[in-house]
């Protein structure tokens, strides 16, 4: 049994995410306590809310979460969750986890938020190669340019502004899109993450 824990920042809908994670060998937990959230085999940082509020929720456990991710705790960070992996955001005050170096900036597009389905480009991530996930649902106004371009494993573009669709470091995968809102291919993406990224560690434990 894999224990997967969603950290609830108190700002949105976690139903689809919990449902997408709920496989026969996965027990899904939701907590509002950031310190107890890392007492898990897979951490999920969900994608709804605003940066400052969520950063405030993480603050008491900021160092502990960063250390856990650095030590290899598997983590799927979605949209705002991905942005929280970075140092800070133009959206508002508050410290991100600083697990990835970089400052989240506003999307430069004619229409903001970027709301709708968009393609994944130059997919180098094994979770999306081979046409496994070609089009995904996005709903965001900010993007994550990493200081180290090597962490980006897939890209997306809107109106000429190119930004990471997926970033990876250790066993943390950050996605700017919402796999739990990307219909059947998105749910399959989450299942592949659980099997490929989160799986090996839980077999050992």
């Amino acid at each position, binding site marked *: 049994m894999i224990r997967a824990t969603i950290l609830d920042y108190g700002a949105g809908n976690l139903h689809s995410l919990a449902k*997408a994670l709920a496989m026969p060998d996965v027990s899904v937990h939701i907590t509002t306590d950031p310190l107890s959230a890392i007492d898990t085999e897979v951490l999920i940082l969900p994608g709804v*809310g605003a940066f400052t509020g969520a950063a405030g929720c993480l603050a008491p456990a900021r160092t502990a979460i960063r250390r856990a991710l650095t030590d290899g705790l598997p983590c799927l960070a979605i949209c705002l969750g991905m942005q929280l992996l970075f140092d800070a955001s133009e959206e508002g005050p508050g410290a991100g986890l600083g697990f990835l170096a970089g400052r989240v900036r506003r999307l430069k597009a004619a229409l903001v938020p970027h709301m709708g*389905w968009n393609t994944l480009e130059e997919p180098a991530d094994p979770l999306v190669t081979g046409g496994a996930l070609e089009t995904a649902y996005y709903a965001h106004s900010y993007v994550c340019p990493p200081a180290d371009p090597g962490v980006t494993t897939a890209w997306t573009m809107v109106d000429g502004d190119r930004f990471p669709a997926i970033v990876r470091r250790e066993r943390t995968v950050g996605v700017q899109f919402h796999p739990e809102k990307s219909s059947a291919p998105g749910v399959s993406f989450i299942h592949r993450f659980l099997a490929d990224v989160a799986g090996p560690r839980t077999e050992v434990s």
Partner: protein
Amino acid sequence: MTRTRRVIVCLDADDDRVVKGVQFRALRPIGDPAEMAARYERAGADEIVLLDISASAEGRETRWDTVRRTAEQLFIPLTFGGGVRSVDDVGRALRAGADKVAVNTAAVTRPAVISEAAAWFGAQCIVASIDARRDESAPSGWRVVIHGGRTETPLDVAEWARECVDSGAGEILLTSIDCDGGRSGYDLALTRTVASLVTVPVVASGGAGSADHVCAVLCDGGADAALVAGIVHDGVVTVGSIKAAMAARGLPVRGEIIRGAA
């Protein structure tokens, strides 16, 4: 690549049943919201909008259960609207499973609802729902109406749309009361007027009678997305045939759907 253009299926719910009316009147029940939403996801709908249009007070609590049941079935975005009066209501809708919440009458009576909700939940989940009626005395040519079209307001649609976006709305759901249910096409001038003024996506609503009408409002009306209801409920067109018509006009649509429709 660029963002794809969306076809959004709208379910008008009255007391836990999907209903269809003409110009907000003459309602008839046509199905269960959760079942219909799941069917439209399989058919390739990009999003679902669930609007609680029940006028009765007893519908107020069942609606959260309707949202919950519908969200349970979906892995595409769900927008809920109808009777959302406060930031607390926005939170309730999100907790019940909605991804976005449409605010209509409450935004007019208390504009701070939009800014407060956007600050806490993020602009991407706050939709300003605007019902527009043609009115030559309005500066833009359209007046905002509320209470499901029953009450006139002094607000000009264009000015109000801009104010909603300035307050933090991440999307505008723009319904033409004049065209709603008429199936003779969207109000292209209305959609164009608003879309040219704001920098958030505009979802056009009211008047779809064919796939060509959807293409027209996306190509010529400047809408980012089109809402359809009656024409897909009645089987006049399918979501797949709308997507195929869009692709034939050069509009980007979700890749999986193109192959599915081919």
